[in-house]
């Protein structure tokens, strides 16, 4: 199936590659802004796959122009859907950007590891407990039956 290289096969391959490259970037980067960019790529890939589903061989754009002669039209629905999806993506990205700005402002860092630990620390401080995963030795050895 993949060997039979057709135009739509290539398109699909490209779309999937795009989204997976985005996903890979999302996984390996620690910089939050890069993660956002990777997310944008991933969403773009997903949108591509969506819009490809309306692709027809030899199809034309689904617009009834004056000289329309009954040619095969591409599916209008995915185009409409992807329009929506793109705008949704834009909204989310803008929001993420704003969040990144705010995080940067407050924590002076964009490294996910740093802000994660600062977040945990802050939560723990607010609740007045030790942050989870702190590598201090346990304060006291808990004897039998004292757990509950």
């Amino acid at each position, binding site marked *: 199936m993949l060997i039979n290289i057709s135009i739509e096969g290539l398109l699909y391959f490209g779309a999937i590659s795009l989204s997976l490259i985005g996903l890979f970037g999302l996984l390996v980067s620690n910089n939050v802004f890069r*993660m956002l960019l990777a997310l944008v790529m991933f969403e773009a890939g997903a949108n591509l796959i969506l819009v490809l589903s309306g692709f027809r061989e030899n199809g034309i754009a689904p617009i009834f122009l004056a000289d329309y002669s009954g040619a095969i039209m591409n599916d209008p629905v995915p185009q409409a859907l992807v329009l929506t999806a793109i705008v949704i993506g834009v909204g*989310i990205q803008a929001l993420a950007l704003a*969040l990144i700005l705010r995080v940067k402002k407050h924590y002076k860092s964009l490294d996910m590891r740093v802000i994660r630990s600062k977040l945990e620390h802050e939560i723990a401080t607010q609740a007045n407990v030790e942050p989870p995963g702190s590598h201090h030795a346990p304060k006291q050895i808990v004897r039998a039956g004292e757990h509950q």
Partner: protein
Amino acid sequence: MNHLILLVVLPLLSAFIIPVVAKHSLTISRLIGPVVLVFILALVVLSWNSVGSNGFAIFLGGFLPPVGIVFYIDHFSLMLSGLIAGMLLIVWPWNSYVAPRQYSLYMLLTAASFGLVLSADLFNLYVFYELLAVATYGLIARQKNPAAAVAALRYLFVSATGSAMLLLGIAIIYTLTGTLNIAHLATMTDQLHGLAGLSAFALIVIGAGVKAEMFLLNTWVPEVYSTIETPLAALLAGLISKLATVLIIRVLLMLFQQSEVLQMLLVVGVFGVISGEMVAWRAKDMLRMLSFSSIAQLGMIFIAFSIAGEVGLWIGLAMMLHHLLVKGGLFLLADKMQGSFDNLRGYAKRSAMAVAIFIIFILSLLGIPPFPGFWIKLMLILNLAEQNNTLYHYAIGFILLATVIEAAYLFKLVRYLFQDEEAATIVSTPKSLTFWYAQIFALVLLVSLAFISPISNRLKDMASQVANPDIYINTILPSHLSGGNP
């Protein structure tokens, strides 16, 4: 009946106009939301009887399905709508200073919730799901606590990735079948039950699972719930997670009701239960404990839904309602009893009422007779035992183990509450509205005890209605019983 679309439209409308109105009168802008919610609640109650046992379909724009978007309304979705409206009224930010746009976000959240409950179109569901997500991010990030921004950001990454996967799943389904209407899809399940269709379903479940606090997709839960205001946490844990679950269940019931799928749901549920309870056991502060416990409860709901047929459905519904009451109540209570266990030492002396309510809630959560939680857990376990599959039997063991761990940490906290010496840092909070709500929740829980039979019958009716794809298809696609082209 077409006016039930107002459930979605009115909140959107009010969300749009609130910022403008606020420029002229803050007071009016504050009142718009509650007024709309009350109106919707009334609408839901009034239309309860006019919705028959077959449900009712709204064809948006007058386009007959499957081309247009369809809303499907039955008692189940009406009940959920009522709960949404009620819950939002309860967590509505009355007394704190709130920017008008935050009210807008609340109203958008409302609209999205209604849309999620009512819509019968895959892509439309996606849109509402995203609206819900964006409104949630906004509300989380808006908290006074700067840590909330980080939590929201981390949540956003997971959730947006999930959403993209959901979109991918929808794209695959559309390519495969050429339609998005769930009822229409339900008439061609044979096409969906292949590798591609199931993969698409898996992607959809992963996307929706992020909000449904599914195992491994729920890492955001503790961070978010411990940074936001407790009423909002009550809303998210109590209601929003359930809506995502409902989305999964709808798709599952209509399109992918296969034993393998159900078993995967079961496994996910079991892991959720075990992991949630175990980590909650380690928690040293109230909110963290509650959020992990919430993960576990959601896992339990998944386990319930993994039982094929009506039985699983109605037990799952009952668990959802119970969890809404209990976990919502606990989070509302946590508004008063926040902080580490150490801070809560001797709290029983300070507020006996709060502790009493807390104990009622946790007893019901643990499934101690005669509280409603017991009956639900009993039905769950008995019905799991009836399944002809050892996987389900193992699940019983895990549920029981989880209950023990749950008891361990809840009563550890109770011990702190009843300790004699009071914590020095204990904060005395004035009687707040949330506390009253928590009391009301507890009262509802106790009163429901007297109505176990009628409630369970009603839920069974709903379940039989929801579980039957034929009713759904008949109502939405009157002419396409056996599939075919529109």
